[in-house]
């Protein structure tokens, strides 16, 4: 379905994930973050950039993967993106919702 984020018309899934990454930019990400109650910092963007790289490289995202990432640890991940970090961060990153159970 269509939605307007940061003044841009974008296509999103029922639970609010962008379905076309080419429609993503930082402003869109910031707006999604705001809706999730998150104020983005440089550290947030570093993590978002890493997530986007992973998805681009078709590497599956999981909590275990965060532990092994070397970019951040699980504790920080939960602190940066409270309320379900994998779900929230991927939404902000404009990528699809991860299907991982772990």
């Amino acid at each position, binding site marked *: 379905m269509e939605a307007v984020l940061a003044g841009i018309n974008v296509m999103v899934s029922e639970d609010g994930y962008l379905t076309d990454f080419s429609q993503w930019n930082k402003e869109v990400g910031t707006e999604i973050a705001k809706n999730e*109650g998150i104020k983005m910092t440089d550290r947030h963007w570093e993590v978002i950039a890493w997530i986007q790289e992973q998805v681009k490289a078709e590497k*599956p995202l*999981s*909590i*275990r*993967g965060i*532990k092994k990432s070397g970019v951040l*640890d*699980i*504790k920080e991940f*939960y602190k940066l993106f*409270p*309320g*379900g*970090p*994998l*779900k929230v961060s991927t939404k902000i990153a404009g990528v699809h919702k991860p299907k*991982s*159970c*772990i």
Partner: protein
Amino acid sequence: MSNSKVKKMLFILSKATIENVYAAFVMANGARMEGIEAEIFFTFFGLEAIQKKKLEHLHVATVGNPAMHMPTMLGGLPGMEAFATMMMKKEMEKLDMPPIGEFIEILADSGVKLWACKLAIDMFHLKEEDLVEDLDGILTIGDFYNRADQEGTHLLFI
């Protein structure tokens, strides 16, 4: 934050078979991933999953487990449990399921509270140093119920 009506999941793990331990761990971790609080109360044989010396040596039950699809007598043969366990661990590794020790670290880092049951600790003559560092403490069942005393809390016995 999560808009779910489920706010907190409390798991009671009473068994040490690998499939039960993973069920509790996957569900507790999954709850955190959905923004739901999670805690695990380890009691009776479930305590094996948080004993430093035992946690990497948990087994699948091959006897009395109809899902193994083998005659019970075969399941009792020497080496059968170890073999079935090895096969299952192999499959789990393919799915990127962490081993028990690593999984406990993941749970603790994710904010899952880990409690040991006082009665079972006394019964098995265990000491706190026998248990993993990530343990949050030893509780009576009364203490554990107090932790359930808020709206949107669910208890699950495994």
